[in-house]
């Protein structure tokens, strides 16, 4: 007990500080005073508000997508689902254009991430663990490329894409997406390799392994968690990309991505606003990202943490 431990019969209180400490221990004991109960309730209210605020829009999308049209356009709005239908999902998933866009996005994002991870790992290994002239300049080049705005180069990329006859192709998107995903993966993985202990590949090299062999056999297996997280973040960026996809492909066409497709999602007639269908499509597009983020969330949070503390 705090009280007995600090009892003056056992120890002599020497300083004002210590006295204050004892006083605060006693103060803490009065846990159930009116003020502290209200404070606790306000705190939990704040938590509830934060959680509801964060989750409600997506919850609402799910509810709306499962609500039959007859109830969807009824006022006042009901916050709980009144009836339930899979109609909108089956309609969206039978929509050839949407499925095509889903496939396109999968191809573009996957290929972009694989290329960025491959070149990124090799480059980051050199930048993080080898010494060569010009390394500093390259690092600064890469860093500045992670920050610069995509819209700034959209005009010259448009010409570039046109001149190579790649307009409205998936290849155009993969190439242009590398302009943001490659600097990102190189930068993050460089810091990742940098943080690994030196002794790792030194031991291997003493045993006669070449640096490349050391990368392949020792560093790479250890880097798998970092590669997965980096890859996921790059995938989210590519999957969510909108500006380049909108500009370098034909929005209503067969070669566009799912973000452009859902942004232009419209009803069969010009005046019909198919909100439930839009919500169903939105949920389908978001679920893969949510699953990925929830699976590696600990690492995303610690990744954010690592970056921020250094800053």
């Amino acid at each position, binding site marked *: 007990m705090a009280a007995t431990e600090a009892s003056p019969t056992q120890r002599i209180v020497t300083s004002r500080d210590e006295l*204050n400490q004892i006083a605060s221990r006693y103060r803490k004991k009065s846990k159930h005073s009116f003020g502290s109960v209200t404070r606790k309730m306000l705190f939990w209210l704040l*938590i509830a508000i934060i*959680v509801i605020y*964060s989750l409600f*829009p*997506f919850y609402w999308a799910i509810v709306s997508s499962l609500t039959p049209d007859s109830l969807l356009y009824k*006022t*006042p*709005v009901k916050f709980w689902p009144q009836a339930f239908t899979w109609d909108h999902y089956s309609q969206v998933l039978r929509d050839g254009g949407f499925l095509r866009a889903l496939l396109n996005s999968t191809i573009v994002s996957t290929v972009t991430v694989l290329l960025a991870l491959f070149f990124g790992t*090799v*480059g980051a290994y*050199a*930048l993080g663990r*080898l*010494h*060569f002239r010009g*390394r*500093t300049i390259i*690092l600064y*080049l890469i*860093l500045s*490329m*992670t*920050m*610069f*705005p995509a*819209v*700034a*180069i*959209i*005009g*010259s990329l448009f*010409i570039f894409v046109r001149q190579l006859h790649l307009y409205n192709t998936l290849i155009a998107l993969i190439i242009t997406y*590398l302009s943001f995903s*490659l600097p*990102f993966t190189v930068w*993050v993985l460089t*810091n990742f390799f*940098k943080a690994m202990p030196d002794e790792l590949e030194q031991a291997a090299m003493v045993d006669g392994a070449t640096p490349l062999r050391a990368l392949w056999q020792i560093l790479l297996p250890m880097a798998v968690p970092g590669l997965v997280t980096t890859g996921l*973040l*790059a995938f*989210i*960026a590519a999957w*969510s990309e*909108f*500006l380049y996809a*909108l500009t370098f492909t034909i929005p209503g066409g067969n070669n566009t991505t799912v973000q452009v497709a859902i*942004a232009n999602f419209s009803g069969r007639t010009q005046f019909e606003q198919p*909100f439930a269908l839009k*919500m169903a499509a939105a949920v389908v597009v978001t679920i893969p*990202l*949510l699953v990925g*983020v929830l699976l590696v*969330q600990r690492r995303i*949070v610690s990744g*954010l*943490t690592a970056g*921020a*503390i250094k*800053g």
Partner: protein
Amino acid sequence: MALQPEAQPLVTSQAAVSATKSKGRWAGPDSAIGRQQERLGWMLVVPSVLIVLLVAVYPLIRTFYLSFTNERLGSVRPTRWVGWDNYTRLFDDSLFRHSMINTIEFTVISVAIETVLGMVVALVIHSEFKGRGMVRTAILVPWAVPTVVSALLWQWMFNDFFGVINSILIRLHLMSASHPKSWTADPSTALGAVVAVDVWKTIPFMALLLLAGLQVIPSDVYEAARVDGASKWYQFWTITLPLVRPALLVALIFRTLDAFRIFDLIYVMMKYSPATMSIAVYTQQQIGNQRIGFGSAPAVIIFLCVGFLAFIYTRLIKVEEV
């Protein structure tokens, strides 16, 4: 948006500095091992450097050049150098001036709100309570939702007749059921609606960065303050805020850089509406209309503004380090 803002926090300029510091196991450029490393290093890094030069650096330089020409795709007229013409025409265009004001307004308001609310969320998650991990997971959801999807979700919530927001306001008697407000169609509230969506989507990023900053503050500092009888409010201003400053600065700059080039949200919610047009939307509209030369001028302006902000950022960080 090229790089997801969320993807950036791993990137810090101090890390750049430390990454360039020699670890002291380099045998020097003239030793056999040094020469071997030099060759291998270049061999491994060259593919990435070439790709970055080709798809980012060269296009950037070319954008500067194009902004001084009348380049137009699909035009038979030959491309020629027009000097500062595009820029004078740009600043003569009231729509562009309006888009600059919109962009600055959006950036200042959204970043200010996000910082304050992000700090509140960070402080809440930083305190210990049951279910803290679950709350942290919950706030990650808006972060994972793609920007286009967020725009669609909120567009539906903002719908004047069937939207949930108006329905709540009507139920609270803050709005009459016969005159529901159309938040996105009314020019006076449209930018506010865009800000609301951006705030929702970006609070997690702010909160997690600030949380990281909070977690490095040693708890005995607070202990000492409590002993001295400092109130929580006083502790926040005298201890928390000064000590969380580096993290706050990083978060602020990344958000500002990102808000300044906003495109997705505004385009999906408002298309090319003048009420909310940002510089990036203006640029994309020109480029989409094949007016590459003229469209490159606002692109250059975005780049210079963002570059200037980034420069200030790296300066500030250096000051922090000393």
